[in-house]
């Protein structure tokens, strides 16, 4: 018995990086942990359900239109007789893809811009941050819509534009972190050793701001997915025959009428979207608590 205790004590002494400690704290959070598994389940389903199902997301069978959930169509069929389950999960694939890719774009821009601004400091920093302030002042959803209208709707454009308009908060967070890091002793030591700008940013700054970046990125994904659904709901995002949760909810909303309630058209894609947003937000909150990040 005494030996086991000694081993654990040794492990503690072996030391854990702040990152490892954060991960441990995170998995103590029950809601966040459950949400990780739930999200993994939804994510896997979006990949495998359309593959495994005998239905295709594009094949229209008008005689099967608007069938309620049955043994053949577990989530019913849409106005064109397409299987709603396959469409919901296939649409989820697109929603996830847009969310992840746009977040990636916004991280790259935000981190590079924020790190550069904070690192250079002085007048350049002031100028760069003023620019961010101006961008914040723009009603960006409307500008996104104008861009979508003009350049046509495509998957590439949806995530590209959303990513290009989503990096401002990230750059502010990163800049703030870099400004505090710059005053730390190890950075001074590195500078004294003659480390130049680029390795200074990549080797010494970036690894140390990873925590806040991860936390904020996790919270960016649901917000981008929400914006994508918003655009697609208006018919300005993803367009037929491709689909996403926003498109499907829009189809459900259009089918509303006083004679017959096609509830499944709204409820199933809506439920998947809501579960995903809930999970991503909970995970983001959990990570924030675990990393103990102060926003700005």
């Amino acid at each position, binding site marked *: 018995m005494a030996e086991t205790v000694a081993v654990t004590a040794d492990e503690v002494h072996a030391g854990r990086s702040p990152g490892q400690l954060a991960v441990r704290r995170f998995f103590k959070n029950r809601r966040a942990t459950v949400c990780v598994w739930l999200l993994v389940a939804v994510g896997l389903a979006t990949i495998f359900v359309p593959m495994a199902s005998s239905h295709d997301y594009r094949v229209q069978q008008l005689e099967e239109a608007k069938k309620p959930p049955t043994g053949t169509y577990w989530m019913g069929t849409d106005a064109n007789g397409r299987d709603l389950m396959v469409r919901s999960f296939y649409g989820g694939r697109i929603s996830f893809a847009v969310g992840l890719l746009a977040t990636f774009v916004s991280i790259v821009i935000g981190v590079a811009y924020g790190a550069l601004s904070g690192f250079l400091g002085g007048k350049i920093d002031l100028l760069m941050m003023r620019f961010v302030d101006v961008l914040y002042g723009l009603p960006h959803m409307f500008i996104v819509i*104008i861009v979508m209208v003009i350049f046509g709707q495509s998957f590439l454009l949806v995530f590209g534009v959303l990513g290009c308009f989503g990096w401002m908060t990230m750059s502010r967070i990163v800049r703030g972190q870099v400004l505090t890091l710059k005053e730390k002793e190890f950075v001074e030591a590195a500078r004294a050793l003659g480390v130049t700008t680029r390795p200074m940013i990549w080797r010494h700054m970036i690894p140390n701001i990873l925590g806040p970046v991860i936390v904020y990125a996790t919270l960016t994904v649901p917000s981008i997915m929400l914006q994508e659904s*918003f655009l697609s709901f208006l018919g300005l995002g993803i367009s037929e025959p491709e689909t996403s949760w926003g498109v499907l909810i829009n189809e459900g909303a259009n089918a509303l009428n006083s004679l017959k309630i096609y509830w499944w058209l709204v409820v199933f894609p809506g439920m998947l979207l809501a579960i995903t947003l809930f999970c991503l937000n909970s995970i983001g909150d959990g990570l924030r608590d675990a990393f103990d990040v102060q926003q700005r």
Partner: protein
Amino acid sequence: MLGFLVRRIVVGLATLFVIASVCFFIVRFAPGNPFSQERQLPPEVLRNLEKKYHYDKPVLTQYVMRMKGYLTGDFGLSIKYQDRQVEDIIFPSVGTSVQLGAVAFVIAISAGLFVGVIASAFHNKWPDYVATSVGLLGICVPNFLLGPILVMVFALALGWFPVGGWPEEASLSEYSKLILPAFTLALVHVAYVSRLGRAGMLDVLHKDFIRTARAKGLDEKKVFLKHALKNGVTPVLSYAGPMAAYILTGSVVVEKIFNLPGMGQHFVDAAFARDLPMVMGTVLVYSTLVIFFNILVDIGYSILDPRVRLN
């Protein structure tokens, strides 16, 4: 105060100018011809159209003309409705969007504060859990999902409220048309406000002056309502500005779902028809409203919290 107002208005106008310029150049350098339609137009007609919309002039001249137009209240001709000015189409619908937004704003602030404050008063007891759940629900059920669900349940299945439309006369039954859209628009903000209110109250309740108030024997009700409440709800105020912007954006969707004659409808229609003067006009009106409400909120903030100086 006056200096603050002047500065904010100047900054606001500058922002509008930037928005108008950005829109103009995106639109002007867009690929494709705005006049191209499904059926091919004869070249003379096309040339005449370009002349009518000044597309035959150099870009910079067009830019200056456009900006002058916005200054004098001339928003240009709509491309879809070729004999109508953009402002004549948009302006009658502004009131609808603003009223809907105002109702949603009031619901969000009052319901949100109520839920948040109750939650903080019963920290870690069941009202707190109920309030936190409401907060979560609001955040993961966006308005374009909530709207159709509310219509299905309360308008179609239960028949309590009308499916859509805008009140036409001042009567109770007509105003009930506003309930579902306003609630749809407000829910997510009820959630945010309640979260902020709860966090702010819990923060304040741990402050020294609250302990002092309790120590001198004040009863809990007074401590809570007189000392904590005033200070605890200030974080909510700083959310009110961004909230005004979100509500206006959200009203685009809500107007579509409930078929309300607001600006959002024009915006979406114009976007689909690629009616760019209309799109630009609506964006500018929306931006003006957002800037105006932000100034209003900041003034309100300084009145409610005297520690905030408007400088």
